[in-house]
């Protein structure tokens, strides 16, 4: 077990190092930092001084080491646009993104499982057919286009939901939360539905397929024969057994949700990390770009590491196979 964990952690560390190399050299070699970082109206002497002060006269590998050293101290430089430390900017925006991701995840679970259960129990009814064909649309519709259409219908035509920003927030444990105020909740509703659309379809399909399989099992027949009420059969016997695959997939989707929040945040001007990175790419805000890419890459590597380790705890075959290889 510990061999497996050590091996996977080393691989994860290696990936982070490779990522930092790609991002650092990519940004520094493809773009010229002198053009971006130094005021073009400087004369030659001032230019030399500025290059020295920023360490741009050093060979690339030394610059990289300085960069790594600063990164370990949490120092990714200052944003050109906001004039604040980049790490602070990103950490400030993280709760908004996480709130959005979790809300859309919860929505897809609490809406998707009942709908899928219904469709699985009565596969021939017109309601179920509507649910299932609706879920196909969820896979094919482009997220950003659905978001735009939602704004058009609910914000422009009907005028019942706000289309931009987070609305009023409440500070809970030092973090601003939107969903606790009515105004904030209204602001959260459309982005969360938009982001969770694809997941909702996934949960519906999984729980429908699961229900149709479970309903044929002997233990369901037995429970019915025993005189258990139909309500209890569905809510306890069926529901428990379809939850396993649904939870697994949902756990894996969380990372995807955070990545895809880039799109939703841009459409609804949700002030999260995703909007920050798109703005910084468009405004050529290099320090924010580098810091965001490194932080998200590290975050994903960590999530994957944890998932791998959890799987190996749950399923011994995974770790045995890895040690053999």
């Amino acid at each position, binding site marked *: 077990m510990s061999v497996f964990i050590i091996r996977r952690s080393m691989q994860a560390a290696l990936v982070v190092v490779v990522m930092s190399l790609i*991002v650092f050299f990519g940004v520094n070699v*493809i773009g010229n930092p002198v053009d971006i970082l130094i005021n073009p109206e400087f004369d030659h002497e001032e230019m030399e001084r500025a290059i020295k002060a920023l360490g741009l006269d050093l060979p690339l590998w030394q610059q990289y080491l300085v960069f790594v050293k600063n990164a370990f101290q949490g120092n990714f430089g200052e944003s050109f646009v906001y004039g604040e430390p980049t790490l602070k900017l990103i950490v400030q925006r993280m709760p908004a993104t996480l709130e959005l991701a979790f809300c859309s995840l919860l929505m897809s679970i609490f809406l998707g499982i009942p709908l899928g259960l219904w469709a699985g129990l009565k596969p021939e009814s017109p309601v179920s057919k509507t649910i299932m064909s609706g879920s196909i649309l969820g896979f*094919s519709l*482009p997220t950003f286009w659905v978001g735009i259409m939602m*704004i058009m219908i609910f914000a422009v035509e009907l005028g019942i939901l706000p289309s931009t920003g987070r609305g009023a927030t409440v500070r809970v444990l030092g973090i601003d939360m939107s969903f606790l105020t009515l105004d904030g909740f209204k602001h959260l509703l459309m982005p969360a539905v938009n982001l969770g659309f694809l997941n909702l379809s996934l949960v519906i399909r999984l729980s429908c397929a699961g229900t149709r399989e479970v309903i044929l099992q002997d233990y369901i027949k037995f429970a019915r024969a025993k005189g258990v009420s139909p309500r209890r059969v569905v809510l306890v016997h069926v529901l428990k057994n379809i939850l396993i695959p649904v939870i697994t997939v949902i756990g894996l989707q969380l990372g*995807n949700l955070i990545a895809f929040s880039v799109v939703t945040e841009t459409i609804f001007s949700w002030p999260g990390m995703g909007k920050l990175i798109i703005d910084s790419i468009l405004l050529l805000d290099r320090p924010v770009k580098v810091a965001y890419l490194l932080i998200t890459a590290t975050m994903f590597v960590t999530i994957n590491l944890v998932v791998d380790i959890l799987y190996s705890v749950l399923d011994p075959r995974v770790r045995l196979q890895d040690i053999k290889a």
Partner: protein
Amino acid sequence: MTVIPEPDSVMDITAPAVPEAETSLRRFISDFTDNKVAVSALVVFLAILFVAVFCPLISPQDPYDLAVIDIMDSRLPPGSESMSGMQFWLGTDDQGRDMVSAIFYGLRTSLAVGATSGFIALCMGASIGLIAAYFGGRVDAVIMRVVDLQLSFPAILVALILLAILGKGVDKIIVALIAVQWAYYARIARGSALVERSKEYIEAAHCLALSNRRIVFRHLLPNVMPPLIVVATVQVAHAILLEATLSFLGIGLPVTKPSLGLLISTGFEYMMSGKYWISFFPGIALLITVVSINLVGDQLRDVLNPRLQK
């Protein structure tokens, strides 16, 4: 490409040798046409392809010829007429371009980017997967570890990282889409090549002392093609959607090469004032394209999957 006889037909000496390929093709066609939905999806897709290829000939105007478009015609609702008496069936965008023509040209760009990146990724991924399966051992372990790692990152994040580094441009978005897709092809190619490798015809090729290169590309590759083609259809649809998303975010294609995503993004600015058509119709075009490709891919998967064959 040399056609490798299936192991069954090698065994079955009495079977007539010549019409074999023909009958299997005919069977494939009749299996495919079993599903009416898939056939109509294929027809729709071919129509879209036709539009994309011949758009300079059939679109009502050249939307990027500044001499033709008139700023006075900008943001007209669907069905209105231009100053010169031309009908705009789907309205016009902010520059006064006819939306029908803009969508035709946008389809062309979207399909071209999706197909090019898909094809290159298919070639790259398939070669890498075949190499992994054929050589096995350490080569296989390293390649598959890289594939697993890449697939553990969401596609949009990988594309975002690459585009943040490379910047905008047609070539850059193709590079990003290839980087996102190759790993899927590599995994599928390796999986089916591992099955094929243990079959007799590969053993026979080894006995003939053919070179590794020849065995991999002339014998193994044609036989792992069917699953790859199925993945390719689904992946092209994914690539088109991803490209549209990235262009919508403003980090994909440049404004001079408007794809459907970029058209939708332009329309977004005018959404608040109720001018829905600039975003709405390109989105419908994108939706129809993606759904038709997916339906064709689904049917291909069912037809080409040996486990589902009667």
